[in-house]
């Protein structure tokens, strides 16, 4: 933690930090807008996937639906980049903020959930399922976990200004 704080203090002295913080006033709102667009892409595509894994929306075949996942990844990449810029711009409002760490923890858990989905073989099983086929309980659990974690990520992100005092 001490290393992170020292690094963050150094970050704050950089030109990029100055520009994001308000030196170039359009950067922060532009990053926020992109962060919301990324959120919609990520949660829209993954949310529909999750519901199908949970055995809802049964008409949709899972294998073909997975062709939309690159759009969710694109949304995630947009949000990682803009999120990093927020941190560089005003690190002080994040590293001491419990909501920030809760959000990061949930993103990490969502990543582990995706790894479990792919490495356990569950993804291969559900890829073969045609329309109207029910999903195994393991897939239902993966889908429900993902939905819960992303809902939590949005919640903690939204609470950053109110509980943790970020802007």
């Amino acid at each position, binding site marked *: 933690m001490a290393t992170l704080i020292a690094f963050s203090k150094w970050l704050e002295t950089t030109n990029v930090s100055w520009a994001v913080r308000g030196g170039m006033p359009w950067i922060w709102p532009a990053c926020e807008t992109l962060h*919301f667009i990324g959120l919609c892409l990520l949660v829209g595509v993954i*949310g529909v996937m999750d519901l199908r894994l949970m055995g809802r929306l049964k008409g949709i075949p899972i294998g073909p639906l997975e062709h939309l996942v690159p759009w969710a990844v694109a949304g995630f990449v947009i949000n990682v980049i803009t999120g990093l810029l927020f941190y560089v711009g005003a690190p002080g409002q994040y590293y001491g903020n419990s909501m920030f760490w809760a959000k990061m923890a949930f993103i990490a858990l969502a990543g582990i959930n995706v790894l479990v989905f792919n490495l356990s073989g569950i993804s291969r099983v559900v890829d073969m399922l045609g329309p109207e086929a029910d999903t195994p309980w393991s897939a239902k659990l993966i889908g429900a976990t993902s939905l819960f974690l992303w809902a939590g990520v*949005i919640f903690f992100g939204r609470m950053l200004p109110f509980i943790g005092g970020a802007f």
Partner: protein
Amino acid sequence: MVQYLEWIENTWFGIWVRESGSIWSYPMIITLHSYGMAMLVGVSAVIDLRLLGFASRVPLASLRRLFLLIRIGFWISLASGIALTIGDAATMLISPIFYIKMLFVVLALVTVRVTERNVFGRPALGADVLPTHARALALSSLVFWLGSITAGRLTAYLGPAAALKGLH
């Protein structure tokens, strides 16, 4: 006009939204607005991407059920949006940015509705042949949603509720 708007934001409800300091007022309402947005815009985008030719092996008819999710997202956004507007009436209802957002939202909603009727309401949907204007509808919907989000973000920089978040 201004007095009327001030009256709205100074009703007990407006004051509660803006000034109660409770996690259940402004913070929770704006979180609901984000959930509504994710459902409304995110699921619309899934349909638009399919109409633009991505994931083309997903049968169109199987996506019809997604309009229910879009509808739920719409009502959550509308209800939370009305609450936020009451709390900030004298700022929002005289702000051009607010009306630009509303214009984009209405255009997007009309586009989604036309898509539901003209593209997904046809009996021939099972054949998976798209009407020629399906792509134009999908592109318009995406552009209108991008406009709504952009203008919506900018409203966050206006008024007393913005000061709640340390913005000036």
